[in-house]
């Protein structure tokens, strides 16, 4: 699915999400619901910086997969899946589980459409083996 289509579906499904931006590990914007490109870049940069700082807080092998920041002004969600990330702002006190679910669905739906994630390998097609005639049957046919 196209990135813009996935984002359009996201905002249509979740009325709690105000704005969302899909970006790469370097902060490059892949798609956004914001009309202003500079604002989208600023949102992606801030979210990338937040992930980086959250990662630095805990020195261990387990990295940050997602985070939620709740403030009086609203909430910020960031979800990471490999090299691809999505950040979204919501109204105050949203349904956290639902927002995370919708963001992960959006990331999954938009995978393979210009993102860093590799598309799933195509499954090999099943072929039917042709039935080989028995030698006796073949002889009977000839007679």
């Amino acid at each position: 699915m196209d990135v813009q289509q996935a984002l359009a579906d996201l905002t249509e499904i979740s009325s709690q999400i105000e704005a969302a931006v899909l970006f790469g590990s370097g902060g490059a914007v892949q798609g956004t619901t914001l009309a202003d490109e500079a604002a989208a870049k600023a949102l992606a940069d801030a979210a990338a910086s937040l992930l980086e700082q959250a990662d630095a807080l805990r020195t261990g092998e387990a990295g940050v997969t997602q985070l939620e920041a709740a403030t009086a002004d609203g909430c910020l969600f960031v979800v990471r899946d490999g090299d691809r990330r999505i950040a979204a702002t919501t109204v105050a006190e949203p349904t956290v589980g639902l927002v995370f679910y919708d963001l992960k669905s959006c990331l999954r739906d938009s995978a393979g459409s210009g993102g860093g994630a590799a598309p799933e390998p195509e499954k090999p097609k099943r072929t039917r083996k042709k039935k080989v005639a028995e030698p006796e049957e073949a002889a009977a046919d000839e007679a």
Partner: protein
Amino acid sequence: MKRRLLTVLGFASGVAAASVVVRRQFGRKRDRIDVYYEDGSMISYVEGSPEAQTLLGPVHEALRASRA
């Protein structure tokens, strides 16, 4: 009688004012950041902690950018 009534009224208004102050002070929800890790663990940083202080900067920046 009048003096006693004034004392009671003064006490009641004092209690009401104090409850408003307490509610304003402690009733406000504090900013918070929940960080989820690959191993399934989660750490919550609440406003006032040094970690939250570091993380809330980009959060407010992101919220400002999205509403610009």
